């Protein structure tokens, strides 16, 4: 199971998923979290970002841009997303020293629940420490 951060999720939604993510998608093994989904949706709707996207895509088919933005409005069902009803009881039991922020707690809880590994572009020392302590795979790699 793979749990993708916002960068890797954006790569997948834009049709650029690497082979291992495509294989995982084929087997119902790709998840993200609400915080990462939220960050991606917010950033992709940032006016500077949409301006840059529109400028570069101007000469291309607008259909593709709309497709990607629609995927942000309605996350494809092939991407797993656990509900707060499921996650919060686990997040609440995670170690609090040091305290994980909401994004990190949600990511660690999701990885534990789906028995998956986190794939991120950046990781705080607090997240790295939590993954070590809780035996969660964490791969930090450029998208």
């Amino acid at each position, binding site marked *: 199971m793979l749990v993708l951060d*916002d960068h890797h999720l954006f790569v997948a939604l834009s049709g650029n998923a690497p082979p291992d993510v495509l294989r995982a998608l084929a087997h119902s093994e790709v998840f993200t979290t609400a915080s990462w989904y939220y960050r991606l949706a917010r950033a992709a709707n940032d006016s500077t970002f949409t301006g840059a996207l529109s400028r570069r895509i101007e000469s291309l088919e607008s259909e593709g841009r709309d497709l990607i933005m629609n995927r942000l409005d309605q996350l494809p069902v092939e991407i797993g997303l656990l509900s707060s009803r499921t996650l919060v009881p686990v997040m609440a039991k995670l170690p609090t020293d040091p305290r994980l922020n909401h994004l990190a707690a949600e990511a660690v809880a999701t990885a534990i629940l789906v028995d998956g590994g986190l794939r991120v572009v*950046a990781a705080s020392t607090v997240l790295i420490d939590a993954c070590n302590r809780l035996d969660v795979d964490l791969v930090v790699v450029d998208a």
Partner: protein
Amino acid sequence: MRVGDRDPGQYHCGVATRSRLDPGLEMAVQRARERAAQTGELTPRSGGLEPAVPADVGAVILELLRDGTYAAALARVTAGDPDISDA
């Protein structure tokens, strides 16, 4: 970078239970897995994302991710909101 080595663990509801979890956390995980298994949350639909994104559009998105445009947008989104930042 890869952090953490997988161990086989024990299995419950078809998924691994890590042996290092403290009892309170482990119980919460087992309950949550049972609930998620009942609601189907643990098994998203399989298959590729269709329809396919045109290659030239996909290339533009990759460019925006790699040239810092997305990172700058993300920095604006997370500024002042430590609960969704990477820090």
